[in-house]
């Protein structure tokens, strides 16, 4: 009952962190949609949205308000409850993934040491997995309940894609776990902070380059981003699983996709790029000089910049390459990624054993 024996101030503290994280996720997601359009614009020799507010900065707000005031359409032939449940699940699962990500080290406020991680279970990575595997239900239910063949096809595509790539993802993580020896994300970050060049060489990316590549590809697949955006391939399936959705429910779906991107960027940064570790800087020395809080905030900013880089990567790839076909995707997942991940796992295992012995 360890999890539950808590005092009120801790609950308050956790609650406020939850609120902050959720709001931050929503806010960043809001502007990620904007960034996506802007990045697409500048990569395509055009400007992108620049009319709403200065430089178009109010664009996401405009989209949000518009979606909010749009008529809610629920197709007559659809399954009402499930139709509403779909986007809800998608949004909910996207948001709760952020619970185990260490967003920073810790802050000292009013003599309390506030950890910037909402929950630090020993099974942090497994938790991420569990939530991600639940997340697919949103897409499936939404697609199925729309009672539209395109949506249904998209839902089936999405489900099989997510299941397939979860395997390779898990295997690449297992290889990583051989290196780290813990599943606690906080500890993984702390481990990486030790290393040459102010922690840079301790990053797991140098231990597990292939594992990272596999993980990256799987993250693209799990987030349904190009080249794995088959469930919402607009040229084939006409927006895919959310094509019958309008108004806020559509917003939920679109948002959950971006939140998923943000959280998986954070997970990638945490697992492979040292999380809130600042490269070339020795944090302990720095915090002795500047105080813990400043370093913690710098760490948060560092993590954010890593997330921003990954988000940019997501968009960059999206606006560059075409998408797979369904059978090619399955082929890549089952016949290339999984063997590769297995090989990576075996090699890592052997090397770890050899080094330890």
């Amino acid at each position, binding site marked *: 009952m360890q999890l539950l024996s808590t005092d009120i101030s801790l609950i308050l503290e956790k609650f406020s962190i939850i609120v902050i994280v959720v709001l931050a996720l929503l806010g960043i997601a809001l502007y990620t949609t904007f960034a996506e359009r802007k990045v697409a614009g500048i990569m395509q020799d055009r400007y992108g949205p620049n009319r709403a507010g200065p430089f178009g900065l109010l664009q996401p707000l405009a989209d949000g308000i518009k979606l909010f005031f749009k008529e809610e359409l629920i197709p007559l032939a659809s399954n009402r409850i499930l139709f509403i449940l779909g986007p809800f699940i998608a949004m909910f699962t996207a948001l709760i993934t952020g619970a185990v990500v260490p967003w920073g080290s810790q802050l000292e406020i009013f003599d309390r040491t506030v950890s910037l991680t909402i929950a630090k279970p020993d099974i942090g990575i497994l938790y991420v997995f569990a939530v991600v595997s639940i997340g697919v239900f949103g897409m499936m239910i939404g697609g199925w309940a729309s009672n539209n063949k395109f949506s249904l*096809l998209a839902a089936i595509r999405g489900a099989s894609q997510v299941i397939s790539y979860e395997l390779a993802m898990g295997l690449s993580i297992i290889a990583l776990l051989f290196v780290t020896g813990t599943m606690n994300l906080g500890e993984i970050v702390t481990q990486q902070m030790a290393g040459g060049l102010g922690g840079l060489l301790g990053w797991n990316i140098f231990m597990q380059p292939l594992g990272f590549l596999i993980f990256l590809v799987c993250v693209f697949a799990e987030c349904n981003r190009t080249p794995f955006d088959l469930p919402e391939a607009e040229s*084939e399936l006409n927006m895919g699983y959310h094509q019958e959705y309008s108004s806020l429910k559509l917003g939920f779906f679109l948002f959950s996709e971006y939140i998923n991107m943000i959280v998986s960027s954070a997970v990638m940064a945490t697992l492979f790029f040292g999380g809130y570790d600042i490269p070339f800087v020795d944090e302990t020395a720095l915090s002795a000089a500047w105080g813990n809080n400043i370093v913690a905030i710098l760490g948060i900013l560092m993590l954010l910049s890593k997330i921003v880089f990954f988000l940019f990567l997501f968009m960059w790839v999206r606006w*560059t390459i075409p998408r797979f076909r*369904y059978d*090619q995707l399955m082929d890549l997942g089952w016949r290339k990624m999984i063997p590769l991940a297995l090989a990576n796992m075996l090699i890592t295992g052997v090397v770890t054993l050899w080094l330890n012995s």
Partner: protein
Amino acid sequence: MSDHNHIKLPEGSIGKTTTTLNLGPTHPATHGVFQNILELDGERIVKAEATVGYIHRAFEKIAERRPLYQITTLTDRLNYCSSPINNMGWHLTVEKMLGIKTPKRVDYLRVIVMELARITDHLICTSIVGVDAGAFTGFLYVMQYRELVYEIYEEICGARLTTNMGRVGGFERNFSAAAWEKLERFLKEYPKAQKELEALLVRNRIFYERTRGTGAISAERALNYGFTGPNLRATGVDYDVRVHEPYSSYEDFEFQIPVGTTGDNHDRFIVRTEEIWQSLSIIEQAYRKIQSFKGAEAEVYHADVPEYYLPAKEDVYTKMEALIWHFKIVMGETDIPPAEVYQAVEGGNGELGYYLISDGGRSPYRLHFRRPCFIYYQAYEEIVKGSMLSDAVITMSSLNLIAGEMDA
């Protein structure tokens, strides 16, 4: 359990493991407007049925009520991606009927315009294949240069897309200096964008595997289905109207006919890209030839046929004879012989034929367009059978189906 014999299966559940998917008419992949009713087994297509006619506009009926010069506006809207080719084809048909011989410079000007149109047509098709495969950006890179071509058109005739360009016997005006300047700019800058598009797609494994081997058709079937143009050439048959029945002095130009080997989507794609390069070379040759004209010859932009070519405005305002011709031509009262002509040009999609029957009247007695799209779209059902849904989409765009041409 003894009662299992009278248990009824749910209605309609037996004998149907496939789903019917209605692709179109508003589906994004059906860029124009046509409908494909697909029978899917999972994602594999077991049967396809194509329905067209969603923008049937009765061109042939309208043409029977319009004087010859007004039909140019109709041909614009056939294959709107390459309107000038259609315009020129129509003028060539009328000139063939009337026995008008155009000067070389006019021919070369026409070649330039037609090849520009071919480039825009292929450019749209190839980049749209990319879009349908999910790569949007390359499309926007080349679209900027299509814009440049449209500016050239605008300098020549005053409109961008539905050009209504040219007259019977030549052009309505000489190319302006701005037009030549823009043409030079296009010739200089376009290859870079085209190379970028190719670099983004052709050898990218995702794109390669999505196109290679999908949507294939053999040469025999293609011929039987009446394929022409790039789609036929992708199967390996080097049939090109420009070479077989040279019109507009195409015999003066050096160019090659790119052919594919398997007739799949990838072959269609690379045949079109290669044709863009050939067209660029043709334009350059034509440009050089035009520059070599000297003196009065260098200003010729129409044949000397006062009966069919509108006189210059200054003459109309001042000279009675010119005014009379002007009235006669506009009212459509010039002499037109009874005739039966078939003239083909190599349109963006293949052999674009004009079958014109004239009874000597002001408008054609019968005008039939051989629309390549319409003819080869019927092969679609056969091509996509057994392929995946995604292939069906790419096949549709790589065939370059233009609804305006198909439905006429």
